[in-house]
């Protein structure tokens, strides 16, 4: 079986690598310095498949801080990443429902 790290990755536009933080599951984004940020605006943006693949390999190599890394399409606004589809908008902004007990 091909290891996920050797698999090809095709991207169709600007892409960032996202995951959940190990300790609490909070959504995180891989930064250009290969750390993790909770702010999508800090995300490293790949515009080629090779760069996206390299970033994903970095993310998957980090077993301590983040879980379940995957490439997510983003839009670039003033050089910063922003979520493009509903799933990522909800991951970034939280549930779309008001609930009075929510912190």
């Amino acid at each position, binding site marked *: 079986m091909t290891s996920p790290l050797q698999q090809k990755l095709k991207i169709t536009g600007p892409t960032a690598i996202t995951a*959940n933080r*190990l*300790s*609490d*599951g*909070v*959504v995180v984004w891989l930064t250009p310095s290969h750390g993790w940020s909770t702010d999508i605006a800090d995300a490293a943006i790949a515009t080629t498949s090779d760069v996206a693949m390299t970033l994903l390999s970095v993310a998957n190599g980090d*077993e*301590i801080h983040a*879980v*379940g890394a995957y490439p997510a399409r983003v839009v670039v606004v003033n050089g910063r990443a922003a979520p*493009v*589809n*509903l*799933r990522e908008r*909800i*991951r970034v902004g*939280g*549930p*779309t*429902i008001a*609930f*009075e*007990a*929510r*912190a």
Partner: protein
Amino acid sequence: MYVHDEFDRAFLADRVADFRDQVARRLSGALTEEEFKPLRLMNGVYLQLHAYMLRICIPYGTLSSDQMRALGHVARRYDRGYGHFTTRQNIQFNWIRLDELPDAMADLAAAGLHGIQTSGNCIRNTTTDQWAGATPEEIEDPRLYAEIIRQWSTLHPEFTFLPRKFKIAITAAKHDRAAIRVHDIGLRLHRRDGETGFEVIVGGGLGRTPFIGKTIRDFLPKADLLSYLEAILRVYNSGGRRDNIYKARIKIQVHEVGTEEFSRRVEAEWAEIRDGALRLDDAAFAAIADRFQTPDFAPLADRPADLTDALADPAFARWHANAVAVHKAPGHAIVTLSLKPVGKPPGDATADQMDAIADLADRFAYGEIRVAHEQNLTFPHVRQKDLPELWRELDALGLATPNVGLISDIIACPGLDYCALANTRSIPLAQRLSERFADPARIADIGRMHINISGCINACGHHHVGHIGILGVEKKDQEFYQITLGGKANHKARLGELLGPAVGEDEVVEVVERIVDTYLALRAGPAESFIAVVQRLGVEPFKERAYAAG
């Protein structure tokens, strides 16, 4: 209530200690995620969109008031102050930190609660009628058998790695409130020639490929319950498909080999084991029955003056007509607590509500609470004379919306607001529908109506068996919803029929309203329910009008 023994308590404490160690090793990096994931799943811990989710098993939907308080404590201390009751009669917490999970589990274990077998390819929580032990319709309390199944299936070494998850439901009443025909195994207790036994139904299920279960045995003596279940599970475990996750449920095996051949295999396996160690004798039943504490119902008269006087208040009378059902003991009643207030997420309860419900259960309901698969709660045993006071308390807590079994009593899965597998959101749609159908008089006129919503084909919101079923599908990053009509989950279970093309997120409420208006125009009179009209006329008249303005 079933009272756990020393073995259960020691086992849970050991399990928490194991999990604490596993979490510590994961956080230190000693365990990889690949190694850790199956361990957390075995304890009901999922990773969802924003956080870890902990699913807690509520055996056959029965909770003591102390257990409800423990859930309230976990919601407040470790979560964001609320929890979500599920169609499996369980509860999920959406925001628990991994590093706090062992403490949360320890607190739950102290109340006899845990997340074991709420995930993974094992036998899940056996569900039953939320009115068990209270309704005059039943021939016996099905929880006794659900408990026997719980003990047999918990950590069953042969059935820990089945081809896929496995769900059993049981009912003992003519009216099936446990949806037994859409389970991997459905059991219906009934009597034949003075003897109690089970009709055994297999291969029902929802999800990607829905099926109504098939009866493989009309009458199984109750002494043979476990040996027969074991035989079914063995036939499934050895012959179920492991090559394709979408074809791995028992329903596909039953469909592929045929009901007759499947039944023949089960009977052949059963012939080998039926007189073995799993045979249940009277002593075995008595030992389990002894651990069930049944309330000592005081001898009371029906319709006491406190109740009849209060019925002069229209608001109380409306709630009473909607949420109160007949109890087997005179002077008592079964009360449903609606977790479907207008505009709120279906099935959610806050920590404060959980605490208050526990207190009310102690005051008015012999300390016992049930979870219904429709995502409501039930007090199974309430004195009729206490109903007016209970109603006032529930109303103040937002738990007395008179919509039980009506159009705004919507089943909805967590959907894309929480769930990592979702295509679309479910909860906001349920909220908008309940706001559209908020008028109590109007929804009472519409009558019995179940809207079920799932955010993806996995069908946790049971959309196939909703009178109106709504399934979220995503097209080019937009939310669309497929609508089916005519499904039902009861003793005459059937799958809904597709109405037509999926409709956009902004149109669904209008389309549902047109379906309802069509029903009101076509019904022979208020006594003809929505489902009866769909069965009489099919979906065509609804299709014409539902899409008319589109």
